[in-house]
């Protein structure tokens, strides 16, 4: 999922200070799962903002709505009936959702309420960790299902660097060395000979190296 964290409340307050009526829009997808921008978080932020402004002597009118998915135009269309009655929109979705709302409603200022972080997985309740960097050319088939692009601090392709110590990365004793994990898993799978194969230099144009990317499915695209 795409993970996110709520922005500091002061930053959000500054965004909406000039406005009176605010539409606060959540998303039922990734940001709900990582407890950053779902229906509940919309309620919490709405309550916090109203109290913060009341304390400054200003009564804010908050409209709350959570879309099924904020990165799809079909769902963003739902806001049509509410948008004219508000001065600005605050989105609790990832950057994709914020931009989709901004694209659809050109004459309304749209502000992000979360910082979009990374594509990650849930390690345990309340803990999410980066797992995929969206490099566009997945290596997991030859790295024992552990990604050296997302999980090695240096994105090394052929084994650990000199900073790997007792299975941990030199950036922090809290961070696993991805290549130590890969080696241990290759051993467990009896596939250690894979480690001998040199992985050639990666074509980063599949990633962000060639600018913004797009997928066009000819059979589906209209």
């Amino acid at each position: 999922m795409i993970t996110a964290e709520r922005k500091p409340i002061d930053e959000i307050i500054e965004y909406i200070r000039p406005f009176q009526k605010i539409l606060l829009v959540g998303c039922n997808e990734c940001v709900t799962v990582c407890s950053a921008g779902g229906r509940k978080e919309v309620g919490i932020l709405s309550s916090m903002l109203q109290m913060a402004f009341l304390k400054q002597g200003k009564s804010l009118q908050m409209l709350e709505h959570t879309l099924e998915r904020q990165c799809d135009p079909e769902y963003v269309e739902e806001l049509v009936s509410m948008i004219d009655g508000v001065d600005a929109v605050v989105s609790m979705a990832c950057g994709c959702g914020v931009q989709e709302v901004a694209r659809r409603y050109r004459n309304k200022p749209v502000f992000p309420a979360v910082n979009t972080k990374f594509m990650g997985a849930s390690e345990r309740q309340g803990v999410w960790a980066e797992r995929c960097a969206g490099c566009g050319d997945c290596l997991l088939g030859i790295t024992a299902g552990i990604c050296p692009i997302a999980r090695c601090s240096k994105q090394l392709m052929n084994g650990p660097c000199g900073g790997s110590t007792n299975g941990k990365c030199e950036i922090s004793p809290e961070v696993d060395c991805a290549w130590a994990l890969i080696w241990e898993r290759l051993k467990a799978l009896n596939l250690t000979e894979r480690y001998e194969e040199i992985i050639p230099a990666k074509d980063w144009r599949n990633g962000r190296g060639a600018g913004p990317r797009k997928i066009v499915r000819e059979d589906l695209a209209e």
Partner: protein
Amino acid sequence: MTTQEPFEPVIIAFCCHYCAYTAADMAGTRRLCYPANVSIIRVPCSGKVDALHILKAFEKGADGVYVAGCLDGDCHFKNGNHRASRRVAYVQKLLNDIGIGSERLAMFKMSAGMGERFAEVAKEFTETIRALGPTPIRSLHRDAA
């Protein structure tokens, strides 16, 4: 305080059915006095109390809120009281962020047999909130409306 009337705080107590709520009952049965400022909301477990419930209480004008759950290790649902404690700590940070103040929110733990403790907590917390004065939200709600 600018008004002449003494300040009577509005306090919301989220009480677990299995401990604090029964303790409140016991306090009543034993004719123990505790301040009428405390309004009790019975919940099936303190772990049921969400950040949103607490914030809404403040938004609607509460001057103080507390969550009362079972003693450590005694939760009817295993660890609801532990979760509630962590949630209260989280909401305390949110309250600090918006300038309401974390000291207006507290977590207490007691058993169903601790009627005296319930009355004591109600008295102490009411006095703490009375000393802090009214939350700015209650009066501003009225002014801004």
